[in-house]
């Protein structure tokens, strides 16, 4: 960004200031197999994309900024891969930025959202985007990069999961409460069913038996903790869209977050808190919630590498400075750690 500065000011700047150099555009494409979306500070432009390589234990930060010389936007919530592209969901900027997944060069912007959170490609041509404030799922045409339809769902739609032509939407409650998972028929973009689960479902996963798991955060009232409601974990049979079993977390201060499975889909991982929790591990056949943490820490993000079963977590520190991402083996042995961007929030595995 060049500014008009007078000759006097330029002289002064040269003498006394350390004006940062314009970012050179690297000629080599960044390499790696794990994208890390860093939310950045609210109202700032510090949302940034990092790329981590498990082969060489290296991280490249600000890879989109380096390639395009513009910030991604305000609150990089999540990302999704489809075809040659990576779709970067910028929550507070209310848009999805499309870039080439290899070169990371900017391609397009999809606009028209109010508060996009997650994107789920359901075919080569179509993706669903959860729009938190508008309580809807936006249907996006990936060829024209436009919103072509909108499906009303519950409050604060968060993550989605596609199974057998149906898309399950966890309604996280937005600023209040909800306890439903909506089922959308992807062929008609209509709501087929609602499943009642625990308070504020936010994360979904599928296990090896084809069952779905729903992690519900519960409710947290910072001004009056007496109103808190504990989180819960529900299992759903997608064949009947009914609840098979559920587990209630023991304390009203338990507000679990994130949900992932190993490659075999036999093990569930989640965080005990959405803001600085430990990693817990649970076999899908377990009859009770685990009582002991699997990896201790103050983690914010959670992901499991689909090829290696390695567990990726992040610590956002004070939510103001660059956070740290950690990589553990499936037996909880720390393999590597690296500084990412500000508030590393989600992992996307190539």
């Amino acid at each position, binding site marked *: 960004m060049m500014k*008009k500065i007078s000759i006097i*000011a330029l002289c002064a*700047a040269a003498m006394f200031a350390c004006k*940062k150099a314009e970012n050179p555009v690297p000629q080599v494409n960044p390499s790696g197999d794990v994208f890390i979306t860093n939310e950045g500070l609210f109202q700032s432009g510090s949302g940034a994309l990092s790329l981590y390589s498990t082969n060489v234990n290296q991280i490249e930060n600000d890879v989109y900024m380096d390639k*395009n010389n513009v910030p991604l936007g305000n609150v990089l919530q999540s990302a999704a891969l489809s075809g040659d592209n990576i779709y970067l969901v910028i929550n507070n*900027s209310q848009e999805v930025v499309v870039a080439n997944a290899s070169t990371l060069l900017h391609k397009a912007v999809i606009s028209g959202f109010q508060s996009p959170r997650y994107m789920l490609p359901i075919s080569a041509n179509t993706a669903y985007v959860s729009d938190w404030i508008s309580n809807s799922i936006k249907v996006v045409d990936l060829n024209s990069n436009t919103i072509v339809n909108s499906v009303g769902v519950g409050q604060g739609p968060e993550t989605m999961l596609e199974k057998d032509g149906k898309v399950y939407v966890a309604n996280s409650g937005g600023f209040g409460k909800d306890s439903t998972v909506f089922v959308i028929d992807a062929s008609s973009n209509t709501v087929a069913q609602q499943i009642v689960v625990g308070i504020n479902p936010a994360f979904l996963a599928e296990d090896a038996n084809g069952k779905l798991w729903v992690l519900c955060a519960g409710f947290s009232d910072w001004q009056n903790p007496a109103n808190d409601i504990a989180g819960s974990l529900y299992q759903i049979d997608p064949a009947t869209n009914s609840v098979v079993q559920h587990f209630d977390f023991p304390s009203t201060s338990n507000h679990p977050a994130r949900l992932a499975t190993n490659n075999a889909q036999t093990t569930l991982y989640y965080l005990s808190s959405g803001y600085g929790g430990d990693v817990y591990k649970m076999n899908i056949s377990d009859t009770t919630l685990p009582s002991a943490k699997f990896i201790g820490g103050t983690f914010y993000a959670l992901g499991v590498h689909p090829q290696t079963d390695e567990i990726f977590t992040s610590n956002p*520190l004070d939510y103001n*400075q*660059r956070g740290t991402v950690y990589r553990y083996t499936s037996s909880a042995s720390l393999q590597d750690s690296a500084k990412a961007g*500000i508030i590393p929030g989600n992992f996307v595995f190539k």
Partner: protein
Amino acid sequence: MLLLLLTKSVAQVDTSQVLPAVLVTDLRVKELSYTQLQLKQDSVQLLISPGVNMADWLQQTSNANVRQFAPGSAASYSTRGTSSEQSSIHWSGIPINSAATGIADLSLIPATLFSPVFTVGGNAAFFGSGAIGGTVNLADQSAIGDGFHVGISQQVASFNTFKTGLQLTYARLKWKSKSTVYAESSQNNYAYINQYKIPEREETRANAAYNQWHVKQLVGYKINKHQSAEIEAWYNQAYRESPTSILVNKPSNAVLRDRNLRTRALWQLDNNRNLVQASYAYLHEWQTFEDPDLPTPSGGTTHDTNITTNHVAQINYQYKISEKLKWQNGGQAQFSKVSGSNRVGNLHTESLRTGLALNTKNMHAQALVRLEVWDGELLPISPFLGLRYTFFRNFNASVNGSYVYRTPTLNQLYWVPGGNINLKPENGYTGEFALYYSAQKNRQNIFVRAALYASALNEYIQWVPGANSIWSPQNVKQVEIYGLDVNATYAIQVKQWYVALRGALSLNHAETVKSEKQNDQSVGNQVLYQPKLKTTSGFTIGFEKWYVNANYRFIGEVQTAYDGSGNSLDPYGVLDLSLSKTIGFKKGETTFIAAFNNITNQAYETVPYFPMPGRNFSITFKINI
């Protein structure tokens, strides 16, 4: 006359000036003037100024750095590497930094209502909590002539901006009165280039409109030869839309509303040996933030209210032991209470100060200590030592040092959730060494001053996340600061010609040296929003009451990321020009001012992703009868 006025724009040997008998300056400001730099609003500049608020004035003329989201929006300032809470603003001696937030909003202080004096440097022994980086002292000290006088000003400016002022003064025998009404509004719908989009595009600032109005009444009464009293009330009300970052595509409907009532009463005794000022003030601030698009967990939408009340009783007492030696004393008691959507709490402070001032032909020395009890807790003694020596004609050297502190705000103590009643005051040491030359000769006036300063501050308060994601303020950091301030002015008046040159340079290094936080990446890096370089410069050329005036300011790179490598604000320079003409007539004078601001159309931000206006214009008409 103009030359005389200009000399008062920077630190002088003595700030004493001819004031109307019943208009009283804060005694401490005068006491401090011997050993610390003071910037005053230049009377020539004031005459030809199109009308600015304190945020603009400090940014244009001082070493301080001002941050705001848009013109008219909430503005805070910091100087010499300190935070916004570590600089204090006093209204005729009464501290008006919000007891809830610790900050005084400079956008709600029209500079035209006051004759501000900006004291640079730490002086907690004089002014108490928050006087670490500097102190702005607001006082209505403009002369009130005998009889009835009227002053009217009207400005029309770009972006549908209007500023209107009316001032009535009356003085007769022992009574003086000044009534002021001021109103300002703007659509603030200025164009800017959004450089963060691909491709770049021109956009218009949305939801940044504001309006504010002020009513102020001052009444003074001269009781007898040695005693006088004054009362003053100042009410202002503001409506300000809250614009979003330009990375956010949705317009904001958020609004900030302010109402402030400030009243004070003062009695002064001034005889040959005793100078006593006793005052009482009641301050009431009411602020709400409304965002109809932001629901709350308990239902409804965001409507956050903050109500703060303050009672301040103050006494300053100076006893003249001899012509050269003065005994300086003071005391203050303050009770503050906050209530609002997220906090209820109160606290009280009591303080005493005492010291000696020695003034000889070549030397001025001050030694002072302050004792403060903060909510029942005795704080460390705060000393101030200052010395100025004239060693060769007009060459002077000065040195001063002090222990400084800033007590936690009511929000930091009582915010729900996360308020921390166990916070300790921020504290540390600050000092400076200055050389300066000051001379008036052959209708010329020259002033050059260079000051080296350093501070070591501990227990910096910062909000950090804790258990269950609840943020809480903690004493976490140590900061070391050092730098150089240079100020220079030159003015000459020859017959009908008047020429003035002015410049200032500020080099600042403010580094976090230690942190209680684990893996704190701010350690070793410049403190946020503290430019390492700031310069201001300008000139005024006058001929037969025509004036051409230019001001240029350059702000170096500003860090906005803790790790020192991420986001930062690019350096920028802004050039403002004005042309004015004053026409005298039988009972008064009228002035026309045409101002061209940011004439090079510089794109710049003082907060990331909140652009400031490009080139803009104003026309101002003033009449004084």
